[in-house]
């Protein structure tokens, strides 16, 4: 107690003071203004998805709905015309899901296995793998775009779900291995040694020890892979066709359709549908999303 008295307590509430109040007001005012700037675009889009298109065109894109309709969501989902086929975004939404879910699961599983092999077993070429993986994270996708296109057509996978998922799995493995390696390197070696003395092999140790201790990094990796692959556009547009097109590529076509009358109402709903899966993940897994940013990205 004597020690605490010796030093002034900086956490204590200080008495009222005009300068302090002014600085508090300034802090909150700035945060609120920037917060409004951050939230505005999404709020505008959301309000427009509830307005009649004629109202949007007559008033402006930025405005309060005077009468509310849910029709835009229905049209955007099931009957809006994209590239002359009037199916709405539904097939593209499911196309994205069909690509993202397996690619996320497979790349995460491989990443976790790789991370385990790299950190807990003496690998002769661990550093080579690590360098390759780091390069893979930084490589601009444009440099490998043409070889990928040629290679996929050799494999008979060009413009298909399987081809696009394969590209994402191979590229994603670099990210997932890096994430998982940085996490598993802190796992106590004694646990692994104990399992080995008990006669457990690689896969048994993996299932019984590593997997049960890895939910934090599995969640981070899944969130990252899902968000990244869902939002990806360059590969999505290059390696897709009319039978299979992810939602980012479809949305770009919708946006590029300058047919005279702009359908902002259902356009807004379509944009929101494309943004909902990563946003849901962000709002429900926010803690892990931030952890991925601050740990995965820094290391």
């Amino acid at each position, binding site marked *: 107690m004597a020690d605490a008295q010796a*030093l*002034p307590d*900086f956490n204590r509430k200080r008495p009222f003071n005009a300068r302090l109040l002014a600085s508090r007001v300034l802090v909150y005012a*700035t*945060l609120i203004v*920037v*917060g409004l700037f*951050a939230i*505005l*675009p999404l709020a505008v*889009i959301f309000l427009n998805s509830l307005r009649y298109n004629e109202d*949007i065109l007559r008033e*402006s*894109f*930025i405005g309060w709905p005077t009468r509310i309709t849910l029709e835009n969501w229905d049209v955007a989902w099931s009957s809006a015309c994209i590239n002359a086929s009037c199916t709405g975004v539904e097939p593209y939404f499911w196309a994205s899901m069909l690509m993202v879910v397996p690619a996320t699961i497979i790349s995460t599983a*491989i990443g976790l*296995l*790789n991370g385990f*092999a*790299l950190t807990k077993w003496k*690998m002769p*070429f661990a550093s080579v*793998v690590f360098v*390759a993986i780091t390069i*893979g994270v930084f*490589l*601009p996708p*444009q*440099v490998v*775009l*043409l*070889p*990928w296109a*040629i*290679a996929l057509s050799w494999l008979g996978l060009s413009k298909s779900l399987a081809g696009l998922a394969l590209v994402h799995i*191979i590229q994603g*493995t670099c990210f997932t291995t890096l994430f998982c390696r940085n996490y598993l390197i802190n796992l106590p070696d004694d646990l692994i040694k104990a399992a080995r003395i008990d006669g457990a*092999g*690689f*896969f048994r140790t993996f299932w019984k020890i590593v997997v049960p201790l890895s939910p934090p990094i599995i969640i981070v990796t899944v969130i990252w892979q899902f*968000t990244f692959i869902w*939002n*990806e*556009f*360059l590969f999505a547009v290059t390696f897709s066709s009319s039978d299979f097109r992810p939602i*980012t590529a479809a*949305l*770009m076509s919708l946006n590029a359709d300058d047919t005279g009358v702009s359908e*902002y109402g259902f356009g807004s709903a379509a*944009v929101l549908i494309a*943004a909902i899966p*990563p*946003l849901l993940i*962000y*709002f429900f897994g*926010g803690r892990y*999303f*931030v952890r991925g940013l*601050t740990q995965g990205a*820094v290391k």
Partner: protein
Amino acid sequence: MQSVALTPEFRARPVSRAARMAQLVPTLVLLPTLVTTGIYIFVFVCWNIYLSLSSSTLLPVYDFAGFDAYTRLWRNPRWTTGVQNLAVFGTLYILFSVLVGVTLAILMDQRVKGENFLRSIFLYPIAISFVVTGTTWQWILNPSTGLEKFFHDLGWTGFEFSLITNRETALYAVVLAAVWHASGFVMVMVLAALRGVDQDVVKAGRIDGASMTKIYRRIILPSIWPVMISVLIILLQFAIKTFDLVLALTHGGPGISTTFPAIFVYDRLFAAGELAQGAAAAVWLLIGLIVVLLPVITLGWVYRKQKAGGGHG
């Protein structure tokens, strides 16, 4: 059972076939990744370089045409404009994202109420795709529907806001949307770093009577360099790879005023049927990335070394 394992005879016994196989398992697990990553990174990059030196146009041709594609590339105004745009965009984008992000982080560090809520608001744009970001901002900035019309309808008929449709200013619309997308990310990274700053040093500074401004400038900000370097690396990458944001926001226009190198690559490869030139442009993207990242990564490495030698073990 344990003591048996330590007897000399046991150690001397040759390793069984099964045990040797078991030792191979981790290698076999890594092998697919090693092969695919090796192909994807080294083979594909070399393949791309080879094609950039060929005379390929619509279809890949495996001959040697020297640096013909490269010379044609630098004579193409679409490419040179793209490079200039990238330089301007990259500088402004990084500058403003860092400025806004660091300011927000410092403000959030003043024990504000509702910190979690505010952080969610600032950060959510990073979770949204560039296509959505670009489309949204295009609608908002479009003079005939967005902000300009909004102010006209309010009665301010003289208001002109043609940022996105003006050749001279359209690039700044891209900067605006990109900064909106990234500043929350910078804020979160910097805030995490601020929370990791040694509070004893800060307290010592306060006891010495230093003002908060001085404490931030002299003590806190200099100590978060490693995070700033990570932020810089990530933003630089984003800038060089910029593609979908511009496509959704301006389609590279008006004219070619917001064209970017990454867009040029795509256009040459899949629209113009100029494979060699597209591949050459892609090689320049890689060179550009290496040239800007190498000094930054070296800086981070030197910093870490210094810190390691400076008593932190």
